[in-house]
């Protein structure tokens, strides 16, 4: 019961803490404009990095924006890590298979939950019963095998690169090594637990046991669950929560070029921001003039 409950709580904490992190960033005061071109929102112009400021009297013309272009750029980054691909191909291979593997493992977990629910509903997930169960059965195997293989390989390669690359190792802190070691430990313990049954029926059964709070513990499973729980809770508290940060650094900083125009939403935001009282003051002599505050 405790084992099932703790993994559910840690998964909820993962989601809750990630959301809280996003909330904290979203609550931060309005910052000055720091856009960096190309800004994909700029319809057509984004192809060469242009902006609305290329138009004479830009403020009197309707802004031509493209949410689709923004979405495409976002997906390129999310699904392909394009900037790393473009600018550091050698690291991209390891990073990409690692991140792609995580997507596979997320899909695998969702499939396990769906499979467990299907099992609990009485329709056994196997290759023969219905199209749906066969679909679940094979997709779970596929996502699980690929997910574990490439995520683990990616994490191991990233760790090795960090240990042996003369530049990276100069900048890597103990915590940054720990992050990769923790992920590797969680992955390897998962491989140890699930590899005896590569159809993942055991995994689906344990998932169903978690959902019904009736997990039968054994040492290996307990170790895997503890590692998984620590990982779930630790990720949003560490820089591994960059899935949150990346949204803000692109959408709210580099791609945010909204001008301050009469009647605009930005005008309201600025009114609020300018109304905020500042309590901390800088100490240099020229900062003491009233106009500096």
């Amino acid at each position, binding site marked *: 019961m405790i084992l099932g409950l703790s993994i559910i709580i840690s998964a909820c904490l993962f989601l809750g803490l990630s959301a809280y992190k996003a909330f904290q960033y979203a609550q931060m005061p309005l910052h000055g404009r720091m856009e960096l071109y190309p800004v994909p929102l700029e319809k057509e112009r984004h192809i060469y990095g242009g902006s609305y400021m290329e138009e004479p009297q830009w403020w009197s013309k309707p802004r031509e924006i493209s949410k689709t272009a923004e979405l495409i750029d976002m997906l390129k980054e999310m699904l392909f890590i394009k900037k790393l691909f473009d600018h550091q191909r050698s690291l991209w291979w390891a990073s990409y298979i690692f991140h792609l593997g995580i997507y596979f493992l997320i899909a695998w977990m969702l499939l396990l939950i769906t499979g467990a629910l299907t099992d609990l509903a009485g329709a056994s997930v196997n290759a023969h019963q219905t199209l749906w169960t066969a679909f679940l059965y094979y997709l779970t195997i596929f996502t699980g095998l690929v997910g574990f293989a490439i995520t683990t390989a990616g994490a191991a390669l990233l760790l090795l690169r960090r240990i042996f690359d003369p530049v990276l190792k100069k900048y890597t802190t103990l915590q940054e090594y720990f992050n990769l070691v923790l992920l590797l430990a969680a992955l390897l313990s998962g491989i140890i637990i699930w590899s005896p049954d590569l159809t993942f029926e055991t995994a689906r059964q344990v998932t169903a046991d978690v959902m019904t709070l009736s997990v039968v513990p054994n040492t290996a499973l307990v170790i895997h669950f503890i590692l998984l729980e620590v990982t779930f809770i630790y990720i949003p508290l560490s820089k591994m929560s960059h899935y949150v940060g990346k949204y803000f650094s692109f959408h*709210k*900083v580099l791609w945010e070029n909204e001008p301050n125009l009469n009647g605009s939403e930005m005008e309201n935001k600025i009114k609020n921001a300018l109304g905020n009282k500042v309590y901390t003051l800088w100490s240099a002599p*020229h900062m003491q003039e009233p106009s500096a505050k």
Partner: protein
Amino acid sequence: MMKEKDLRPKELGRPAEQLIHLDQLMPLSFPYDQPGMETDFPAVKPEWQEKYCTSLDGCVAIDTLTRPKTEEEEKEFIQQFLSGLGKVFSDANNSVLQPLKLSFEYCAKCNTCSDACHVYKGSGENELYRPIFRSDVFRKIFNQYFTSGGKLKKKFIGADIEVNWETVARLGELAYRCNLCRRCAQTCPLGLDNSLFAKEIRKIFSQEMGIAPTPLHAKGTMLQLKTGSSTGIGKAAFLDMIEFLEEDIEDRIGRKVKIPIDKEGADILLSHNAGEFVAWPENPAAFAILFEEAGVDWTLSSEMLGYDSVNYGIWYDDAQAKKVALKQMKVAKELGVKRMVIGECGHAHKALGVVADRYVYPEEKIPVESWIPIMWELVRTGRLRFDPEKNNFPVTLHDPCNMVRQMGIVQPQRNILKVIAPQFREMTPHGVDNYCCGGGSGFAIMSSPNFGQFRDKVSARMKFDQILRAFSDTIIDKSIPKYVCAPCSNCKGTIREILSHYQATDKFNVRYGGLVDLMVNGLASIDKPYLEFLSDQQI
């Protein structure tokens, strides 16, 4: 002895007369790949070592950062820095909190950004100038002093730096080894921006410790706020200069052009970097010629700050930036013009067009725009007509980071060049991927005691190499003038310095100037060449 390439951020404060030596710079392209084409760094004078912080790389950017005489002074210096560092993540810094926190927290130390940095590359990939080196020192010091936990936790998170006077002073200097060009940020897979750390360190030094390079502060924003211009030009002198400009125009092109001053309700208030009036009067003159020919309703202002668009505050001090920008906006508002147009000055574009955009409510300001789209409109609609044969020599374009990468004004200047310059060729890379000229964020105007050497040899090295590559087909032929078009006052200043440093004008006839100068030179209605170097040269 430790090898310089093995230098790590935690060693910034280690005892050494000079942490690194700039003796293995990036090789330059032909013909500067030949022996004897470049001089070595001049030796660091003992009196500089005694007075300033030369212990970083032998160069001095902050001439107001002097060595302490007593232990108390030393302690106070460190204390002041730490006090400022604490304020960086407080409400005193609201306008940058979110981007800064993101860059502080999320760097994956993947090192993707290094290859994007022209300072790092130009230095021959010296570890000290790797974009994350500075950021990591910042992180380490912050974590050391402002995160809870014992020794073990601090070691775990990398808070393992010894903070002494040398550490802090070198970090201050190191903040002036970044041009704030943000090219590195373009390549970061996480969208992070190392230039923020350089800027924040500069701000701590200025806003908390009262230490900033004289050309930026005492003779920069302070002088501008006092006299109206960072050049020190007052209203009377400015008006004299305008008179001189009108005479000069008549001498050059035989045409009387009246430059409108303080014309109330004009469509356009044109605001120049006042350095142009002093160093390159042909540039504001060219604007006057073009606007008059096209029949534009425009004016200059003779009010304090109205005739100087610069705002050095954006490089080192947010409060100074705001004071300057608000006064500039007030001038435009009081004159009742419809729009404010920034002339050939990149950082002024960004300061008024982007940074100051959120300083005040919309009703308190006048819309701001760049001169480039307006000029392209005048060309496109035939209000300005050209004979491109007059500009039939190799021309390349430098993209000022502030206008291009940071404002997205990319195409109109190219459209103009395609009309007026038949031998226009791009640099590689160009547009939003351009390299900084090496003079960005104040370097263009910082020369003493020996910072000019750092700029010319290191930070501007990549740009010089780009210029050489852009003209590789004709560089060796001295009879052919080659024109580097730099539509920004600071970039132009830097290019002037590098052409002089490498004797590229004397040896290879490489010239430089703005875009409007080239436009006037190509005007169909003018008989004489406008570019001086063409007067005694047959194209």
